[in-house]
């Protein structure tokens, strides 16, 4: 479980997070949406420990993240763009990660994401899509309880995007907590149970998708979100 309370973060004069309160539970897919600069990335990076909040608390499975890094054993992360060193081989990256992690790897994933054929290749030899496929595999590799996926399908080829969506669905059924940021309403509609919409560093909508649709009398998710935003 991720529990965020009264989270504040400023970068100079810019307020990135303005008192965010947010909880995510196991077995749900929560989509994080919002315009650029609304605070989605800062919020995700705060959970990962990449951004240090000015105030507030983030608890991951009973552990305050400011007091250690072991909690990241429970998290699988997929960045929006994969930028690995040009000379690094895929197998070397996997070795580094196996060294840092305590949990066992799910080697079936290597086959599922078709990584075997590029295992010995350097990242400099791979296309953007292939690099992103490696990132996707890494997120799931150690069978984490929590998945944080930053626009997971944006750079993937259609086949890999479908594998990714089915992995998200399967992970949800296994009781994992999944936090996905996305700009695509159709994707959110397909994979998420719940939506958290951010504006100016605050979560302005935090509802289950079914609730968003029912409450606005419109079956189209995009229209329902727009109706809700107009009321704010």
């Amino acid at each position, binding site marked *: 479980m991720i529990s965020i309370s009264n989270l504040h973060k400023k*970068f100079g004069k810019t307020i990135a997070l303005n008192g965010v309160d947010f909880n995510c539970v196991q077995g749900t897919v929560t989509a994080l949406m919002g315009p650029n600069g609304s605070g989605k990335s800062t919020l995700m*990076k705060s959970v*990962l*420990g*990449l*951004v*240090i909040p000015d105030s507030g608390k983030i608890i991951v499975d009973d552990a305050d993240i400011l007091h250690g*890094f*072991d*909690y*990241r*054993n429970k*998290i699988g*992360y997929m*960045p929006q763009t994969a*930028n*690995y*060193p040009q*000379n*690094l081989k895929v197998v*070397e990256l996997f*070795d*580094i*990660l196996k*060294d*840092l*992690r*305590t949990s066992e790897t799910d080697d079936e994933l290597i086959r599922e994401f078709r990584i075997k054929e590029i295992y010995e290749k350097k990242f400099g030899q791979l296309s953007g899509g292939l690099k992103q496929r490696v990132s996707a595999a890494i997120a799931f590799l150690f069978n984490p309880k929590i998945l944080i996926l930053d626009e997971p399908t944006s750079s993937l080829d259609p086949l890999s995007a479908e594998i990714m969506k089915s992995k998200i669905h399967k992970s949800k059924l296994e009781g994992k907590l999944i936090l996905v940021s996305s700009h695509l309403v159709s994707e959110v509609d397909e994979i998420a149970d719940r939506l958290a919409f951010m504006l100016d560093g605050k979560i302005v909508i935090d509802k289950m998708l079914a609730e968003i649709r029912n409450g606005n009398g419109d079956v189209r998710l995009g229209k329902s979100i727009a109706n809700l935003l107009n009321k704010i």
Partner: protein
Amino acid sequence: MSLKILKYVFFDLMRSRFVLTYIGILAFISFGVSYFSNDEMKTVLTLLNIVLFIIPLVSLIFGSIHFYDSGEFTEFLLTQPVSRSSVFRAEYLGLSLALSLAVVAGLLPAVIIDRLSVGNVYLLGISVILTFVFTGLAYLASSMNIEKVRGIGLSIVIWLFMAVIFDIIVILLIYLFRDYPLEKFIIILTSLNPIDLGRILLLLKTDVSALMGFTGASFKNFFGSSIGMLLSIAALFLWVLIPYLLAIRIFRRKNF
């Protein structure tokens, strides 16, 4: 510290074009100087002057470039269960060790031609320590600045100050206050510059007091060579330690 990360950073740099070119240039210079000089001491002193110019420059500029270029991978590593200090240590040591090995390999022709001597050993030792010092300063300058241009700019300013401006200030002070006893003051001032410390350390060992100038002579007279050497080494190690500790402190609080 993750040895896997350290090993990766080290070997990745050792096969990079930049480090191989660095080895090649240093090897060319050291071979040329040794081959055309028939006095071992002159070779060491000539190489010392070159090394004191090149090592700080390369360590600072390349260190900063490497810090920024590996930023996204560093960020990715920090999403894994590993402390920020571990990642920083692995990156810093990997880079410092790779550049140190490059310097040692580059100076090897001089050692082979002139045979292993005390002067050569000190030259290699000082080169390695200076590599660690200026890589630490590069990481400090880069940790302090989010923007690559500003970080590299600060590294260039540090090099200009240490390699050029500092000596101008010392000479100016000596000239302006020539009627006063400045020995102790100059000794303290010298320890504020690792390049001067490195130079004095070697000159004290090679016992060429005629070439030492005012600063070095003061060192020798005041401390005697063995104590002076110990204090110089201690000051150099402080120069390794302080930028590293300051940089790691900033890195631990940095937002990515």
